[in-house]
Structure formats: structure tokens, C-alpha cells
């Protein structure tokens, strides 16, 4: 299997912050790889090094077989990038944004028009092709950013928080499009805050925190490895949690506390649930474990600024 991205001991040091503190990972050709992590974890910086917007400070990095520091033009020629911020060109209409962007890749005008029409069809914006950017909703803008990122038929498609701030319909539409791209064998690399998104789309995820990759693997496997199958959630103030957690060794449950809530992770929660209901506890939520539990367990439940 060939790697679309290969990183070894990758480091990025800004003036006084170590944004990426030596990470190793590779993205296989044709897979969807997700980087998840709290704000300031180093996700965007990692992406920027891959799409040649910032040079790395140390370590090895190869993108589509080339070093971004040495051949940025060649690397970028085969990349599609959907940035976190909307940076569509407000001087042009929807179609004009795509054809202008195609020119940066040296795509001849005739072909650019054909590609642009196809892509507008793909992201369902054909009717808006002559609209100004100001007239688009945020969901439409994001779809146009996706279309723009695909104008050069990229081998590696990089998306930084592709659905942040979108309503559920718009988000599902983007997900559908990304799944279609994956079927067409485009390698996808995305960052996200939404665990649901990572679970839905990614073959493998890397959980990043403070510039390091904490764990990496298929989402389901990570959930099984770090949490188990199920979770019980109890709303309980801190003082009363002690009573519950005593004598749980028998049920082999892992405990996680916050000020107001108690989380119990176990393989099969039924016996524990019966035990707790017998002791008079009500309002217990029993649900399957998710990537969000892994994430919160690994990066902590405290608010990160």
C-alpha cells in the first residue's frame, strides 16, 4: 500500500510555541484519514505543513511522494484544499470563482468551464452559478469551497473542519459528497471537532492534543480499546458519586467523573444497570460508547481555551 502522506517525527516550532511536537503518521492512498483534537492541538498546523502553507521545522514529511519544502508547486498541483475560513473571491460570481481558480492550476479555459459546470452540478449549485458570493448561504459557500478544491482533480483532498457552523442538512450533504469522492478513490484528509463526523467518514483517525498524537486507529477499534461497548451516564453531584463508585470492581467498569456527572464504561452494562436501579438510582442513560467518549477520556473533560 502506498502512502499519500508520510510523516516521521514531524515538528513545527513557531516563535514561542511548539505547535506540533514530533508526530508520526501516514495516510494510505484511497483512505479517509481524520485528525481530531481540541482547539490548539496542532491539527491545522499539521495540515498547513502538508499543503505547503508553512514549512516544517524538523522531521520528515512526504506528500504524494514529494517533499513540500523542496517541490511545493508540484505537491500543490495534485492537492485540493478546503480551508476553515471562507476565502472565496468576492470579486467574482460562483462560476467565476471556479474558472479563476482553475487558472492558477494552468487549466485551459475551455476545460475549466466544463469542469466548473460538472462540479457545480456535483455540489448542487448549478442554479447559483451567476450569483455573487454575498448571496450564498454559509452551507452553499462551503459547498462551493468543496467544488473549488476539486477543480484540479486532486489526488489528495484536504479539508479543515469542513462542516463547522453548518446546519444538519448542509452537513449531511457535504458528508454524502465526501463519501462519493472516497468511492472515486480520492484520498481524504480532514480535521474535525465533530466525533460523529469522524466516525461517519473516517477509516482511521488520529487523536491529537498539545502537538502530539495520542492514539491512532479505526474509530470503532479505538472505542472498543479505550471505552468498551457501553456507557452509563448518571447525573449526580460530586459529593454523592463516591457512594456509587464503591464496590464496582466486580462489574469491571471504568469510572470517569465530572462535577455533575458520572460516566461508567463497561463491556456489558446490564448487570451494573440492574445493580444501580436496585439501589434506587433513577435517570440512568445507557448508550453505546462513541468516539466522543474516547476523545474526552484522552484529552480530558476540562474546557480548553
Amino acid at each position: 500500500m502506498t502512502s499519500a502522506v508520510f510523516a516521521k517525527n514531524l515538528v513545527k516550532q513557531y516563535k514561542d510555541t511548539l505547535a506540533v511536537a514530533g508526530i508520526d503518521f501516514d495516510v494510505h492512498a484511497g483512505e479517509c484519514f481524520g485528525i481530531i483534537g481540541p482547539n490548539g492541538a496542532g491539527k491545522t498546523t499539521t495540515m498547513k505543513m502538508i499543503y505547503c502553507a508553512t514549512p516544517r521545522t524538523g522531521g520528515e514529511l512526504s506528500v504524494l511522494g514529494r517533499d513540500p519544502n523542496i517541490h511545493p508547486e508540484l505537491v500543490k498541483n495534485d492537492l485540493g484544499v478546503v480551508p476553515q475560513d471562507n476565502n472565496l473571491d468576492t470579486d467574482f460570481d460562483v462560476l467565476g470563482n471556479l474558472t479563476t481558480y482553475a487558472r492558477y492550476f494552468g487549466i485551459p479555459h475551455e476545460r475549466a468551464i466544463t469542469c466548473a459546470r460538472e462540479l457545480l452540478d456535483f455540489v448542487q449549485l448549478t442554479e447559483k452559478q451567476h450569483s455573487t458570493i454575498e448571496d450564498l448561504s454559509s452551507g452553499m459557500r462551503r459547498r462551493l469551497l468543496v467544488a473549488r478544491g476539486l477543480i484540479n482533480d486532486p489526488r489528495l483532498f484536504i479539508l479543515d473542519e469542513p462542516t463547522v457552523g453548518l446546519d444538519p442538512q448542509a452537513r449531511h450533504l457535504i458528508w454524502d459528497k465526501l463519501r462519493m469522492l472516497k468511492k472515486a478513490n480520492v484520498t481524504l484528509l480532514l480535521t474535525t471537532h465533530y466525533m460523529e463526523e469522524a466516525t461517519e467518514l473516517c477509516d482511521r483517525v488520529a487523536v491529537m492534543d498539545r502537538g502530539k498524537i495520542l492514539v491512532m486507529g479505526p474509530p470503532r477499534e479505538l472505542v472498543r480499546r479505550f471505552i468498551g461497548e457501553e456507557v452509563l451516564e448518571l447525573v449526580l453531584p460530586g459529593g454523592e458519586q463516591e457512594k456509587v463508585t464503591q464496590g464496582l470492581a466486580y462489574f469491571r467498569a471504568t469510572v470517569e467523573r465530572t462535577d455533575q456527572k458520572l460516566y461508567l464504561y463497561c463491556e456489558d452494562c446490564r448487570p451494573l444497570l440492574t445493580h444501580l436501579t436496585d439501589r434506587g438510582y433513577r435517570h440512568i442513560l445507557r448508550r453505546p460508547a462513541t468516539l466522543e467518549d474516547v476523545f474526552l477520556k484522552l484529552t480530558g473533560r476540562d474546557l480548553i481555551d
Partner: protein
Amino acid sequence: MIRVSLRFWKVWRRDFDAFMKYIYVNLMGNLGDPVLYLLAMGLGLGKFLGDMQGVSYVQFLAPGVIVSAGMFAATYECTYASFLKMFHLKTYDAIIVTPVNLEDAVGGDIIWGASKAFFSGCLMFAVVAAFGLVHSWWSLLVPLLIVIVGFHFASLAMLVTSLSRSFDFFSYFFELIITPLFFFSGVFFPLDSFPWWLRALAYCSPLTHAVTLCRALILGHIPPHPYISIAILIIPAVALFYGSIYLMRRRMIK
């Protein structure tokens, strides 16, 4: 090392296409001020002044107004317009993830600034010609001179933009550099009337040399030191061009 590839034309073309969408508004905006100067000062004030350096006042004034139109067009383009594209609209962020590098983008914007000077200056030149104020075949070189002036001031403006933190910075640049240049570069009156030190200062102004050259071309005279004037317009411009790209890269690529 600074490498600007031929891909800068793609950015130039983007700017050109955006300009063409509102071409009439854009040209009117560029033409307004200089035509006013020509009418108000040349024809109005000129009536009371009589001849200046052996020609009518409006004839004296016209060449300076042509090159200043170029200076202002290039300066506006590479200060306010470029700053907006870089830091507010994030147009640059979108461009530099394509095979076009930041160096190409900045270079393309500067060449665009020079082109805009060319459009404004040539339009002004046409107006001056229509007033019957062009007297020599040498004046066919005026468009070339305007491009050089445009390149000079576009590069200077981009250097200022690379250091600017906000739009306010540009008002200082205009008030402290561009407007004084406009008034003390021999556009409105000959520099002979200045004390020696002010004359020396004016001699350092690139606009002084642009005005001298333009006046000579239009009247068919031989300017006093043509090669020095050309060198003063071109050599610092090349340094400013690369310097501004270097500073912009240092600022935008961390």
C-alpha cells in the same frame, strides 16, 4: 532567495478580470482628480500666472499631472486594494495553496499596480493630447514612462503594505510621503524657486525625475540628465520590488 515564476501572470489576470467587471467606474475614479487639477489649476489659476519656463501654465502642468495620475493609481492599488485582498478577504490564502506561490502572488499584484498606473496615465495622456498640449513624436514614449513610474510606486506601496498593521497606516503614508512628493516634485512649479536644501531633497524624489522626463518628451526637449533620471526611477524600483516580496513572505509565511 526570492523566486518569482511566470505564474504571476495568473494573479495579474485575476486582478485584470476583476477590474474589467467595473471598468467604467474604475476609470472614472482614476480620471476624476487629475482632470480637476488640469482644469482648475491649469486653466483657472493658469490665467493669472502667465508663462512658466517659456510655456503656458497648463502646458507646464500637464506632464506632471499625467505621471502623478500613474503614481496615485499604483499607490492606491498596492496599498488599500492589496491589503484588503491579503488580510481581510483572504484571497491570498486561497491562491497560495495552488501551484502559485506567495512570491508570484505579490509580484503579480505589483505588476497589476503598474498596469493600473498605465491605464490611468494613458487616459490622462489622451486627455492632455485632446487639449492640444502634446507637441512631439517623442511623446510616444510617455506610456512606457508611465509603466516605469507605476512599477516604482507599486513596489514602494507594496513595501508599505507589507509593514502595515491596519488601513490607518496608509493615511500616514499618503500624508507624509505621497502628497509631499506630489507637491514638491515640480508638478506645479519649477524647483528653481526652492532654497538649495529643498531642491536637493526634491532631486531625490522619483516623481521629480518622472515629471522632468515626461515634460521633455511632450515638448520634444532634451532633459538635463536623462540617464540619471531613468536610473533613479528603475534601480530603486527593482530593489523595492524584491524587498517588498521578501518582507511579505516573512510576514505571511510563519
